[in-house]
Protein backbone atom coordinates (compact mmCIF):
# COMPACT_ATOMS: atom_id res chain seq x y z
CA UNK A 1 0.00 0.00 0.00
CA UNK A 2 1.19 3.51 -0.83
CA UNK A 3 -0.24 6.90 0.10
CA UNK A 4 0.99 10.27 -1.07
CA UNK A 5 0.28 13.96 -0.74
CA UNK A 6 2.92 15.17 -3.18
CA UNK A 7 1.69 16.24 -6.62
CA UNK A 8 4.81 14.84 -8.27
CA UNK A 9 3.86 11.32 -7.25
CA UNK A 10 2.25 8.69 -9.42
CA UNK A 11 1.28 5.56 -7.51
CA UNK A 12 1.50 2.36 -9.50
CA UNK A 13 0.76 -1.29 -8.88
CA UNK A 14 1.47 -4.06 -11.37
CA UNK A 15 -0.13 -7.33 -12.51
CA UNK A 16 -3.17 -7.53 -10.26
CA UNK A 17 -4.50 -10.91 -11.36
CA UNK A 18 -7.28 -11.85 -8.92
CA UNK A 19 -5.98 -9.28 -6.45
CA UNK A 20 -7.66 -5.90 -6.20
CA UNK A 21 -6.27 -2.41 -6.54
CA UNK A 22 -8.23 0.25 -4.66
CA UNK A 23 -7.47 3.93 -5.23
CA UNK A 24 -8.77 6.73 -3.05
CA UNK A 25 -8.27 10.42 -3.74
CA UNK A 26 -9.26 13.66 -2.08
CA UNK A 27 -9.21 16.35 -4.80
CA UNK A 28 -9.28 19.24 -2.34
CA UNK A 29 -6.03 18.44 -0.54
CA UNK A 30 -4.62 16.31 -3.38
CA UNK A 31 -3.97 13.30 -1.21
CA UNK A 32 -4.34 9.80 -2.56
CA UNK A 33 -3.62 6.18 -1.82
CA UNK A 34 -3.36 2.87 -3.63
CA UNK A 35 -3.92 -0.49 -1.96
CA UNK A 36 -3.11 -3.83 -3.62
CA UNK A 37 -4.70 -6.58 -1.55
CA UNK A 38 -4.47 -10.27 -2.31
CA UNK A 39 -7.09 -12.12 -0.28
CA UNK A 40 -10.57 -11.39 1.06
CA UNK A 41 -10.41 -12.19 4.76
CA UNK A 42 -7.72 -11.73 7.42
CA UNK A 43 -9.22 -14.47 9.63
CA UNK A 44 -7.18 -16.82 7.48
CA UNK A 45 -3.95 -15.79 9.24
CA UNK A 46 -4.30 -13.17 11.96
CA UNK A 47 -0.55 -13.05 12.62
CA UNK A 48 0.17 -12.34 9.00
CA UNK A 49 -2.58 -9.73 8.97
CA UNK A 50 -0.93 -7.95 11.89
CA UNK A 51 2.39 -7.79 10.09
CA UNK A 52 1.05 -7.03 6.61
CA UNK A 53 -2.51 -5.76 6.94
CA UNK A 54 -2.49 -4.64 3.29
CA UNK A 55 -2.64 -8.28 2.21
CA UNK A 56 -6.32 -8.67 3.11
CA UNK A 57 -9.44 -6.70 2.12
CA UNK A 58 -10.82 -6.33 5.65
CA UNK A 59 -7.58 -5.06 7.18
CA UNK A 60 -6.17 -3.28 4.12
CA UNK A 61 -9.13 -1.08 3.19
CA UNK A 62 -9.51 0.58 6.62
CA UNK A 63 -5.75 1.11 6.72
CA UNK A 64 -5.85 2.78 3.30
CA UNK A 65 -8.51 5.26 4.39
CA UNK A 66 -6.89 5.97 7.75
CA UNK A 67 -3.49 6.57 6.19
CA UNK A 68 -5.01 9.14 3.85
CA UNK A 69 -6.84 10.86 6.72
CA UNK A 70 -3.46 11.31 8.38
CA UNK A 71 -2.35 13.32 5.37
CA UNK A 72 -5.42 15.54 5.58
CA UNK A 73 -7.91 13.72 3.37
CA UNK A 74 -11.57 13.59 4.40
CA UNK A 75 -13.93 10.72 3.85
CA UNK A 76 -16.75 12.80 2.38
CA UNK A 77 -14.51 14.07 -0.40
CA UNK A 78 -12.83 10.74 -1.22
CA UNK A 79 -13.14 9.44 -4.76
CA UNK A 80 -12.89 5.65 -4.74
CA UNK A 81 -12.02 3.47 -7.72
CA UNK A 82 -11.32 -0.26 -7.97
CA UNK A 83 -9.70 -2.57 -10.50
CA UNK A 84 -8.69 -6.23 -10.64
CA UNK A 85 -10.37 -9.35 -9.30
CA UNK A 86 -9.84 -11.30 -12.50
CA UNK A 87 -10.87 -14.96 -12.70
CA UNK A 88 -9.65 -18.19 -14.20
CA UNK A 89 -11.94 -19.49 -17.01
CA UNK A 90 -14.83 -21.79 -15.96
CA UNK A 91 -14.28 -21.21 -12.29
CA UNK A 92 -17.80 -22.03 -11.13
CA UNK A 93 -16.64 -24.97 -9.01
CA UNK A 94 -13.17 -23.76 -8.39
CA UNK A 95 -11.04 -21.59 -6.13
CA UNK A 96 -12.68 -18.25 -6.81
CA UNK A 97 -10.25 -15.79 -5.30
CA UNK A 98 -11.13 -12.99 -7.75
CA UNK A 99 -14.86 -13.24 -7.07
CA UNK A 100 -14.35 -13.42 -3.32
CA UNK A 101 -12.07 -10.41 -3.38
CA UNK A 102 -14.72 -8.37 -5.19
CA UNK A 103 -17.50 -9.50 -2.84
CA UNK A 104 -15.43 -8.70 0.26
CA UNK A 105 -14.78 -5.18 -0.98
CA UNK A 106 -18.41 -4.48 -1.82
CA UNK A 107 -19.53 -5.68 1.61
CA UNK A 108 -17.05 -3.44 3.39
CA UNK A 109 -17.97 -0.41 1.29
CA UNK A 110 -21.68 -1.05 1.72
CA UNK A 111 -21.35 -1.25 5.50
CA UNK A 112 -19.36 1.98 5.58
CA UNK A 113 -21.43 3.93 3.07
CA UNK A 114 -18.64 4.24 0.55
CA UNK A 115 -19.64 4.61 -3.08
CA UNK A 116 -17.46 3.32 -5.90
CA UNK A 117 -16.84 6.02 -8.49
CA UNK A 118 -15.13 3.90 -11.09
CA UNK A 119 -14.62 0.17 -11.54
CA UNK A 120 -12.91 -2.27 -13.87
CA UNK A 121 -13.15 -5.72 -12.31
CA UNK A 122 -13.61 -9.36 -13.29
CA UNK A 123 -12.69 -10.80 -16.72
CA UNK A 124 -9.53 -12.86 -17.05
CA UNK A 125 -6.67 -10.48 -17.69
CA UNK A 126 -3.97 -8.79 -15.65
CA UNK A 127 -4.19 -5.10 -14.88
CA UNK A 128 -1.75 -2.38 -13.89
CA UNK A 129 -3.16 0.65 -12.05
CA UNK A 130 -1.78 4.22 -11.99
CA UNK A 131 -3.02 7.01 -9.74
CA UNK A 132 -1.76 10.51 -10.53
CA UNK A 133 -1.69 12.54 -7.33
CA UNK A 134 -1.70 15.89 -9.16
CA UNK A 135 -4.97 15.22 -10.97
CA UNK A 136 -6.52 12.17 -9.30
CA UNK A 137 -6.64 10.51 -12.68
CA UNK A 138 -6.77 6.71 -12.48
CA UNK A 139 -5.60 4.77 -15.51
CA UNK A 140 -5.86 1.00 -15.82
CA UNK A 141 -3.75 -0.84 -18.36
CA UNK A 142 -4.77 -4.40 -19.09
CA UNK A 143 -2.45 -7.17 -20.19
CA UNK A 144 -3.65 -6.86 -23.78
CA UNK A 145 -2.12 -3.36 -23.82
CA UNK A 146 -5.42 -1.43 -23.67
CA UNK A 147 -5.56 1.68 -21.45
CA UNK A 148 -8.77 2.90 -19.87
CA UNK A 149 -9.39 5.80 -17.55
CA UNK A 150 -11.71 5.09 -14.64
Amino acid at each position, binding site marked *: MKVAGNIDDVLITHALGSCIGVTVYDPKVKVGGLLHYMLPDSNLDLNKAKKTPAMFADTGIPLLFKSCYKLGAEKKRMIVKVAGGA*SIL*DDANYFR*IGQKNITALKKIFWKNNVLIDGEDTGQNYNRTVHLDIATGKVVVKNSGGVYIEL
Partner: protein
Amino acid sequence: MIDDKFLKSIKNLPPFPATVQKVSALISDPDFSMMDLVGVIEYDQAITANILKMCNSAYFGVRHKISNLRQAVSYLGRENIVRVVNAAGTSRYYKKAEGYYIDEAAKLWEHSVGVALMTQILSRKIYGREDNKLFTAGLLHDIGKVVLGEFVHESFQEIMGLVTDHGYSFLEAEEEVIGINHAQLGGEIAVLWKFPREIRDAIAYHHRPDLMEEGDDAIPWLIYLSDQACLMMGIGGGVDGLAYRGLGEVIDKFNLRQKDFEESIVLLLKDLEKAKELVDLVESESKG
Protein backbone atom coordinates in the same frame (compact mmCIF):
# COMPACT_ATOMS: atom_id res chain seq x y z
CA MET B 1 3.41 -34.35 -35.05
CA ILE B 2 5.52 -31.40 -34.14
CA ASP B 3 6.26 -28.93 -36.92
CA ASP B 4 9.80 -28.77 -38.36
CA LYS B 5 10.30 -25.11 -37.63
CA PHE B 6 9.70 -25.69 -33.93
CA LEU B 7 12.01 -28.68 -33.87
CA LYS B 8 14.70 -26.60 -35.51
CA SER B 9 14.21 -23.79 -33.09
CA ILE B 10 14.41 -25.92 -29.99
CA LYS B 11 17.52 -27.61 -31.36
CA ASN B 12 19.12 -24.16 -31.51
CA LEU B 13 18.66 -23.74 -27.78
CA PRO B 14 21.91 -24.16 -25.90
CA PRO B 15 21.99 -27.66 -24.39
CA PHE B 16 20.89 -27.97 -20.79
CA PRO B 17 23.98 -27.68 -18.60
CA ALA B 18 25.41 -31.14 -18.00
CA THR B 19 26.48 -30.00 -14.54
CA VAL B 20 22.89 -30.09 -13.35
CA GLN B 21 22.36 -33.70 -14.42
CA LYS B 22 25.74 -34.70 -13.01
CA VAL B 23 24.87 -33.19 -9.66
CA SER B 24 21.50 -34.97 -9.58
CA ALA B 25 23.20 -38.27 -10.38
CA LEU B 26 25.89 -37.79 -7.72
CA ILE B 27 23.43 -36.79 -5.06
CA SER B 28 21.11 -39.72 -5.67
CA ASP B 29 23.89 -41.92 -4.31
CA PRO B 30 23.38 -41.89 -0.53
CA ASP B 31 27.14 -41.95 0.08
CA PHE B 32 28.03 -39.10 -2.22
CA SER B 33 31.14 -37.18 -1.30
CA MET B 34 31.08 -33.43 -0.81
CA MET B 35 34.44 -33.13 -2.53
CA ASP B 36 33.19 -34.90 -5.65
CA LEU B 37 30.24 -32.57 -5.71
CA VAL B 38 32.40 -29.46 -5.41
CA GLY B 39 34.62 -30.85 -8.15
CA VAL B 40 31.70 -31.26 -10.56
CA ILE B 41 30.21 -27.86 -9.86
CA GLU B 42 33.30 -25.66 -9.78
CA TYR B 43 34.12 -26.75 -13.29
CA ASP B 44 31.06 -24.75 -14.43
CA GLN B 45 31.77 -21.11 -13.64
CA ALA B 46 28.37 -19.73 -14.61
CA ILE B 47 26.58 -22.14 -12.31
CA THR B 48 29.06 -21.57 -9.50
CA ALA B 49 28.56 -17.80 -9.74
CA ASN B 50 24.78 -18.22 -9.65
CA ILE B 51 24.98 -20.57 -6.66
CA LEU B 52 26.98 -17.99 -4.72
CA LYS B 53 24.36 -15.35 -5.53
CA MET B 54 21.61 -17.50 -4.09
CA CYS B 55 23.02 -19.53 -1.23
CA ASN B 56 22.58 -16.87 1.47
CA SER B 57 18.91 -16.52 0.62
CA ALA B 58 16.64 -16.72 3.67
CA TYR B 59 14.64 -19.35 1.79
CA PHE B 60 17.37 -21.94 2.42
CA GLY B 61 17.65 -21.01 6.07
CA VAL B 62 21.42 -21.37 6.39
CA ARG B 63 22.65 -19.57 9.50
CA HIS B 64 26.29 -19.31 8.47
CA LYS B 65 27.39 -16.73 5.97
CA ILE B 66 28.44 -18.62 2.86
CA SER B 67 31.14 -17.13 0.70
CA ASN B 68 32.53 -20.00 -1.35
CA LEU B 69 31.34 -23.09 -3.12
CA ARG B 70 32.75 -25.51 -0.58
CA GLN B 71 30.80 -23.85 2.22
CA ALA B 72 27.71 -23.70 0.03
CA VAL B 73 27.83 -27.44 -0.58
CA SER B 74 28.41 -28.32 3.05
CA TYR B 75 25.88 -25.93 4.64
CA LEU B 76 23.01 -26.09 2.14
CA GLY B 77 22.37 -29.78 2.52
CA ARG B 78 21.38 -32.31 -0.05
CA GLU B 79 17.87 -31.11 -0.95
CA ASN B 80 18.79 -27.46 -1.20
CA ILE B 81 21.81 -28.21 -3.36
CA VAL B 82 19.56 -29.80 -5.95
CA ARG B 83 17.31 -26.74 -5.94
CA VAL B 84 20.11 -24.23 -6.12
CA VAL B 85 21.84 -26.07 -8.94
CA ASN B 86 18.63 -26.39 -10.91
CA ALA B 87 17.79 -22.72 -10.49
CA ALA B 88 21.36 -21.77 -11.42
CA GLY B 89 21.21 -23.88 -14.58
CA THR B 90 17.68 -23.03 -15.69
CA SER B 91 17.67 -19.26 -15.19
CA ARG B 92 19.97 -18.63 -18.17
CA TYR B 93 17.23 -19.55 -20.66
CA TYR B 94 14.90 -16.95 -19.26
CA LYS B 95 17.45 -14.20 -19.78
CA LYS B 96 16.86 -14.54 -23.48
CA ALA B 97 13.11 -14.85 -23.36
CA GLU B 98 11.37 -12.35 -25.57
CA GLY B 99 8.25 -12.07 -27.63
CA TYR B 100 4.65 -11.70 -26.87
CA TYR B 101 4.14 -13.31 -23.50
CA ILE B 102 6.16 -11.05 -21.36
CA ASP B 103 7.43 -7.54 -21.57
CA GLU B 104 10.47 -8.70 -19.71
CA ALA B 105 12.17 -12.02 -19.31
CA ALA B 106 12.49 -11.38 -15.59
CA LYS B 107 8.75 -11.73 -15.14
CA LEU B 108 8.61 -15.18 -16.68
CA TRP B 109 11.46 -16.24 -14.41
CA GLU B 110 9.76 -14.78 -11.33
CA HIS B 111 6.64 -16.69 -12.29
CA SER B 112 8.66 -19.89 -12.63
CA VAL B 113 10.28 -19.43 -9.22
CA GLY B 114 6.83 -18.70 -7.75
CA VAL B 115 5.46 -21.95 -9.16
CA ALA B 116 8.48 -23.92 -7.89
CA LEU B 117 8.03 -22.50 -4.38
CA MET B 118 4.30 -23.19 -4.40
CA THR B 119 4.82 -26.84 -5.37
CA GLN B 120 6.75 -27.35 -2.12
CA ILE B 121 4.07 -25.68 -0.03
CA LEU B 122 1.31 -27.78 -1.59
CA SER B 123 3.39 -30.95 -1.40
CA ARG B 124 3.93 -30.38 2.34
CA LYS B 125 0.23 -29.76 2.81
CA ILE B 126 -0.90 -32.79 0.81
CA TYR B 127 1.85 -35.36 1.39
CA GLY B 128 3.62 -33.98 4.43
CA ARG B 129 6.95 -33.67 2.61
CA GLU B 130 8.78 -31.62 0.03
CA ASP B 131 9.80 -32.96 -3.36
CA ASN B 132 12.61 -31.71 -5.56
CA LYS B 133 11.17 -33.20 -8.73
CA LEU B 134 8.31 -30.77 -8.32
CA PHE B 135 10.70 -27.90 -7.75
CA THR B 136 12.59 -28.70 -10.95
CA ALA B 137 9.39 -29.11 -12.95
CA GLY B 138 8.10 -25.81 -11.55
CA LEU B 139 11.18 -23.92 -12.73
CA LEU B 140 10.83 -25.42 -16.20
CA HIS B 141 7.07 -25.58 -16.72
CA ASP B 142 6.77 -22.55 -19.03
CA ILE B 143 10.07 -23.07 -20.86
CA GLY B 144 8.03 -23.50 -24.07
CA LYS B 145 7.11 -19.82 -23.88
CA VAL B 146 10.75 -18.86 -24.25
CA VAL B 147 10.79 -20.47 -27.68
CA LEU B 148 7.21 -19.96 -28.75
CA GLY B 149 7.48 -16.21 -28.22
CA GLU B 150 9.61 -15.98 -31.36
CA PHE B 151 6.87 -17.37 -33.56
CA VAL B 152 4.07 -15.30 -32.28
CA HIS B 153 4.91 -11.71 -33.11
CA GLU B 154 2.50 -11.27 -36.01
CA SER B 155 -0.16 -13.67 -34.83
CA PHE B 156 -0.48 -12.15 -31.39
CA GLN B 157 -3.59 -10.12 -32.24
CA GLU B 158 -5.20 -13.21 -33.67
CA ILE B 159 -4.52 -15.17 -30.48
CA MET B 160 -5.87 -12.36 -28.32
CA GLY B 161 -8.93 -12.10 -30.54
CA LEU B 162 -9.79 -15.76 -30.01
CA VAL B 163 -9.36 -15.34 -26.26
CA THR B 164 -11.33 -12.10 -25.91
CA ASP B 165 -14.13 -12.66 -28.41
CA HIS B 166 -14.51 -16.40 -28.82
CA GLY B 167 -14.03 -17.87 -25.36
CA TYR B 168 -10.79 -19.67 -26.14
CA SER B 169 -8.25 -20.28 -23.42
CA PHE B 170 -4.78 -18.99 -24.23
CA LEU B 171 -3.58 -22.55 -24.71
CA GLU B 172 -6.35 -23.33 -27.19
CA ALA B 173 -5.70 -20.10 -29.06
CA GLU B 174 -1.99 -20.86 -29.37
CA GLU B 175 -2.82 -24.25 -30.79
CA GLU B 176 -5.34 -22.87 -33.24
CA VAL B 177 -3.15 -20.04 -34.51
CA ILE B 178 0.40 -21.45 -34.32
CA GLY B 179 -0.34 -25.17 -34.36
CA ILE B 180 1.24 -25.99 -31.03
CA ASN B 181 0.89 -24.71 -27.47
CA HIS B 182 3.68 -23.68 -25.10
CA ALA B 183 3.11 -26.69 -22.83
CA GLN B 184 3.56 -29.24 -25.65
CA LEU B 185 6.59 -27.40 -26.94
CA GLY B 186 8.05 -27.33 -23.43
CA GLY B 187 7.57 -31.10 -23.22
CA GLU B 188 9.58 -31.50 -26.43
CA ILE B 189 12.35 -29.33 -25.01
CA ALA B 190 12.45 -31.53 -21.91
CA VAL B 191 12.87 -34.60 -24.13
CA LEU B 192 15.72 -32.94 -25.96
CA TRP B 193 17.35 -32.07 -22.64
CA LYS B 194 16.94 -35.68 -21.48
CA PHE B 195 14.80 -34.97 -18.46
CA PRO B 196 12.98 -37.98 -17.00
CA ARG B 197 9.54 -38.74 -18.26
CA GLU B 198 7.73 -37.39 -15.21
CA ILE B 199 9.31 -33.94 -15.67
CA ARG B 200 8.43 -33.98 -19.35
CA ASP B 201 4.82 -34.90 -18.61
CA ALA B 202 4.58 -32.27 -15.91
CA ILE B 203 5.59 -29.62 -18.43
CA ALA B 204 3.52 -30.93 -21.32
CA TYR B 205 0.33 -31.24 -19.26
CA HIS B 206 0.69 -28.32 -16.88
CA HIS B 207 -2.50 -26.62 -18.11
CA ARG B 208 -4.49 -29.78 -18.85
CA PRO B 209 -3.43 -32.56 -16.46
CA ASP B 210 -6.90 -34.01 -17.00
CA LEU B 211 -5.87 -35.00 -20.53
CA MET B 212 -2.98 -37.20 -19.44
CA GLU B 213 -3.62 -40.74 -20.58
CA GLU B 214 -0.97 -42.80 -18.83
CA GLY B 215 1.60 -42.46 -16.09
CA ASP B 216 1.40 -40.81 -12.71
CA ASP B 217 -0.50 -37.57 -13.01
CA ALA B 218 0.16 -36.25 -9.49
CA ILE B 219 3.11 -34.07 -10.56
CA PRO B 220 1.29 -32.43 -13.48
CA TRP B 221 -1.70 -31.72 -11.24
CA LEU B 222 0.49 -30.11 -8.60
CA ILE B 223 2.29 -27.97 -11.18
CA TYR B 224 -1.12 -27.05 -12.55
CA LEU B 225 -2.41 -25.95 -9.18
CA SER B 226 0.77 -24.05 -8.31
CA ASP B 227 0.61 -22.29 -11.66
CA GLN B 228 -3.01 -21.32 -11.09
CA ALA B 229 -2.15 -19.81 -7.72
CA CYS B 230 0.59 -17.71 -9.31
CA LEU B 231 -1.73 -16.60 -12.12
CA MET B 232 -4.32 -15.50 -9.58
CA MET B 233 -1.75 -13.60 -7.54
CA GLY B 234 -0.31 -11.99 -10.66
CA ILE B 235 3.14 -13.40 -9.86
CA GLY B 236 5.15 -12.61 -12.97
CA GLY B 237 1.84 -12.06 -14.73
CA GLY B 238 1.99 -11.90 -18.52
CA VAL B 239 -0.28 -11.01 -21.42
CA ASP B 240 -1.96 -14.39 -21.20
CA GLY B 241 -3.38 -13.28 -17.85
CA LEU B 242 -5.72 -15.79 -16.25
CA ALA B 243 -7.14 -17.09 -19.52
CA TYR B 244 -6.67 -20.77 -18.69
CA ARG B 245 -9.22 -23.40 -17.73
CA GLY B 246 -10.08 -23.96 -14.10
CA LEU B 247 -10.37 -27.72 -13.58
CA GLY B 248 -12.62 -28.28 -10.60
CA GLU B 249 -11.63 -31.94 -10.17
CA VAL B 250 -8.32 -30.83 -8.63
CA ILE B 251 -10.23 -29.97 -5.46
CA ASP B 252 -11.35 -33.57 -4.90
CA LYS B 253 -8.16 -35.05 -6.22
CA PHE B 254 -6.13 -33.54 -3.36
CA ASN B 255 -9.03 -33.06 -1.00
CA LEU B 256 -8.37 -29.36 -0.67
CA ARG B 257 -10.68 -26.69 0.65
CA GLN B 258 -10.74 -23.04 -0.30
CA LYS B 259 -9.11 -22.33 3.05
CA ASP B 260 -6.19 -24.69 2.32
CA PHE B 261 -5.62 -22.98 -0.98
CA GLU B 262 -5.71 -19.49 0.51
CA GLU B 263 -3.40 -20.49 3.38
CA SER B 264 -0.95 -21.87 0.86
CA ILE B 265 -1.06 -18.57 -1.00
CA VAL B 266 -0.13 -16.68 2.18
CA LEU B 267 2.85 -19.03 2.60
CA LEU B 268 3.79 -18.51 -1.02
CA LEU B 269 3.89 -14.74 -0.61
CA LYS B 270 6.16 -15.18 2.42
CA ASP B 271 8.46 -17.59 0.59
CA LEU B 272 8.71 -15.31 -2.42
CA GLU B 273 10.05 -12.57 -0.18
CA LYS B 274 12.56 -14.94 1.37
CA ALA B 275 13.61 -16.25 -2.03
CA LYS B 276 14.37 -12.81 -3.44
CA GLU B 277 17.88 -13.91 -4.43
CA LEU B 278 16.42 -16.63 -6.65
CA VAL B 279 14.06 -14.23 -8.36
CA ASP B 280 16.89 -11.74 -8.87
CA LEU B 281 18.99 -14.23 -10.84
CA VAL B 282 17.31 -12.86 -13.93
CA GLU B 283 17.60 -9.13 -13.62
CA SER B 284 14.64 -6.98 -14.48
CA GLU B 285 15.23 -3.88 -16.60
CA SER B 286 12.64 -1.71 -14.90
CA LYS B 287 11.65 -2.90 -11.51
CA GLY B 288 8.77 -0.92 -10.10
